[in-house]
């Protein structure tokens, strides 16, 4: 027997995921134009791998394959994995990363909606630990021809020094740790543009545009992007004001690395993130804080992925302790589902 309500809003998981993919398009276009079209090849590789892995896992788990593959969640994971990676990683690295994300992180934990960790971020972290060299080869904007990119992706010989340069975050970190340079002198280097990494600013702007689209479509709420950007700007701003020679400006932090991709697409992953309004603020703020700490004092140039995973662990606690007040329970003790 079917019960009320008998009317449903015309929405679906497929529509949600489809809109997320659509929102990634401006960033991808900027990426392809400014950095190089190799990213499109990697996107194709990751998409095919993800859909195949998804279908296989659903089949092994004896779940309906068609409807679950059609929800596009695997494609979103695939695209996020690729967009976090250097655009010239060899194809097998992408395949490994996507398999880790889909098979291990998603399906071994029970499939869509069940994974406590962000699949793309586990993929990123496991690959940067396993293949640190390949994962840090970022080509400077417009430096490599598409043929070169393609050959590198297909596993061609890699002349490291010839093809890649240090990323903005990497250059800053190395420069500052050498003890001889200040932020200003480092920023005059070739890796840097007006705001952050040269060329990457445009990609970031593309992600921001997509993120604003998701906000407008009410796919994501304001809490996580605002908290992430706010905390990252606040903490970096504070140290920058105190010691401008030793710490980069908030604008640099926001425009560099994956900050904008993370703010609108990574930390906002609903499955592995906090769900209450206050929980979302704490979750995204915590990621920003951890990311900034790792960027400045950690062993890796970029710390967002580790921040996401660490905060993923806190989600059950955050959710439990930030339950919103229920209608009419104004005087209840705040916090806790009690």
């Amino acid at each position, binding site marked *: 027997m079917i019960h009320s*309500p008998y009317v449903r809003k015309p929405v679906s998981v497929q529509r949600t995921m489809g809109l997320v993919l659509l929102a990634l398009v401006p960033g991808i276009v900027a990426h392809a134009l400014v950095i190089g079209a190799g990213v499109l090849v990697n996107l194709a590789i990751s998409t095919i791998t993800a859909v195949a892995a998804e279908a296989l896992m659903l089949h092994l788990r004896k779940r309906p394959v068609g409807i679950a593959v059609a929800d596009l969640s695997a494609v979103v994971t695939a695209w996020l994995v690729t967009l976090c990676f250097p655009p010239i990683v060899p194809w097998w690295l992408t395949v490994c990363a996507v398999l880790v994300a889909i098979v291990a992180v998603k399906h071994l934990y029970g499939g869509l909606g069940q994974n406590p960790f962000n699949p793309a971020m586990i993929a990123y972290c496991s690959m940067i630990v396993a293949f640190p060299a390949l994962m840090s080869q970022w080509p400077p904007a417009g430096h490599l021809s598409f043929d070169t990119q393609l050959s590198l992706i297909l596993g061609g010989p890699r002349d490291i020094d010839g093809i890649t340069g240090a990323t903005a975050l990497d250059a800053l970190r190395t420069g500052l740790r050498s003890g001889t340079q200040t932020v200003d002198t480092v920023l005059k280097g070739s890796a840097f543009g007006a705001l952050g990494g040269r060329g990457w600013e445009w990609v970031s702007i593309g992600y921001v545009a997509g993120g604003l689209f998701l906000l407008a479509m009410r796919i994501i709420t304001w809490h996580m992007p605002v908290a992430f950007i706010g905390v990252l700007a606040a903490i970096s701003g504070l140290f920058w004001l105190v010691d401008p020679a030793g710490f980069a400006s908030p604008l640099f932090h926001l425009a560099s690395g994956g900050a904008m991709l993370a703010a609108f697409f990574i930390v906002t992953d609903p499955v592995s993130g906090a769900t209450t309004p206050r929980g979302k603020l704490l979750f995204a703020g915590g990621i920003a804080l951890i990311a900034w700490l790792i960027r400045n004092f950690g062993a890796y140039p970029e710390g967002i992925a580790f921040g996401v995973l660490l905060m993923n662990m806190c989600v059950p606690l955050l959710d439990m302790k930030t339950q919103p007040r229920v*209608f009419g329970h104004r005087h209840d003790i705040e916090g806790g*589902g009690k």
Partner: protein
Amino acid sequence: MIGRLFKFHGGIKPDAHKNESSGGAIRKAPLPARLVVPLRQSARAGAACIVAVGQRVLKGERIGEPEGFLGTGVHAPTSGTVAAIASCPMAHPSGLETPCVVIEPDGEDRWIEHAPFDYRAASRDEALAWLRDCGIVGLGGATFPSHVKLGRGSGIETLILNGAECEPWITCDDRLMRERAVDILAGANILRELIGARELVVGVEDNKPEAVAAMQAAAVGTPTRVVAVPALYPAGGEKQLIRVLTGVEIPYGKLGGDYGVRCFNVGTAHAVYRAFIHGEPLISRIVTLTGNCETPGNWEVAIGTPVADLLALARPKADTDRILMGGPMMGFAMPRLDVPVVKGTNCIISASPRLFPPAPPEQPCIRCTECAKACPVELQPFELYWHSRSKNFGKAQEYHLFDCIECGCCTYVCPAHIPLVDYFRFSKSEIWAREREKTAADQARERFEFRNFRQEREKAEKAAKLAAKAAETRAKLAEAGTAEAPAAADAPAAEDPKKALIAAALARAKAQKAEIQPQNTDNLSPQTQAEIADIEARRKVLEAVAATPAPQAAEAAAAPDEPRS
């Protein structure tokens, strides 16, 4: 004069579909061949039958006497003959049966003598009793007895009249407000006076501009405020409307009266007006017939009219696959149509796959929190879903399961098409069932414990009695000396009250034996006596033969007695 409006969290804006049925005036539905009037209009308002089969009744004649605290009167909707008094299926998702009075109308529709009731001349209790006897219950759907709602709470400042009608498709309150605004406000003011409220506020969703205008026109020159509230389902929920109009939030399990507000439906106010000013009990109501039908509209329907008869007036189209009672958000698909319209029936929708397509298959929850954003009670439905699914009912209650008003907003917005409300209904009924079981177990345990207690108590009482008796006996023996009853005078026996008693009893028995030697051979017929004498004679012969082993047997019989003493 326009007060500030407040917001409640969440809410949804489904397609209203009001225009289908709101265009035409309310028409009077023809009387069916048989009216099936339930004596119990809801789970709450019960009545005892006071008519007999074959009895002639007049329109408005009372056929059911209010029963119990929440009981309200039941009346004949027209004149006619009582054809049967029997259990009939009700409009309920499970087709429950309830005792009904079946009336065959005589077509005259002749009223019983009735007169207005001057509530100003009567006491408050008398006025409430009048409402109860007129069978006035909340017509918004919950059918809560109005006299009970009016009687509770004190110091009520604001009376709110609910004309929000937020459910899609339903327009019965809309039409009533457009056509009978003056009567509604008259009834509302009677309610306001009875409750002692200072102000009267009417809340109408702003998607009913004609109703707002009609009510405002009727309120001109009075302190009554008619407020257009934003159309946002479920703004017509009592607690949501109170929140919107006054800012007061009433938690689960509390009533408006505790917070100085009280809320009545516009239809109820109209029924109150008819009851006091015209002396008419509640025997009809406005029902919206709409959906997939040729002639949607609003009808004034006699209570007890079978839904099938009523539905014929709307002429459902051929592809109608279900009939919904109530709105599409909170109503239910009727398992059968031979059930009567009751006081809470506000809408009957002909449903087709085109208008109400079946829900797509359920997908996994992705924790997108759309449900939490839509929930007017500010719950986290996905958490409740998780706990309900895993039957973790304790946790579900911690997350305020019972605050859920089952409005359906969460199910409506869920992109994974999870029927969230169904999970919550399931959890609630499971918890109720477990509580009933627990209550039954508690009662059984209480009974068992009481039985043990009683047995202990009786033992103690017996012992006390024995002790008292023993003391008494000892005293007697002490008085009488030892000569008369040597056995009882033994030292150890005197120490033990039980033994003393037994000894005393033995002594008494001996004394009695000495006086009379009752034998079962007394009072026998001469013939039997002769037979016995004959048998005795033969036995003596046998005893003489067996005389030799006799002393042994006597010893054996005596032996077991020795260690006992």
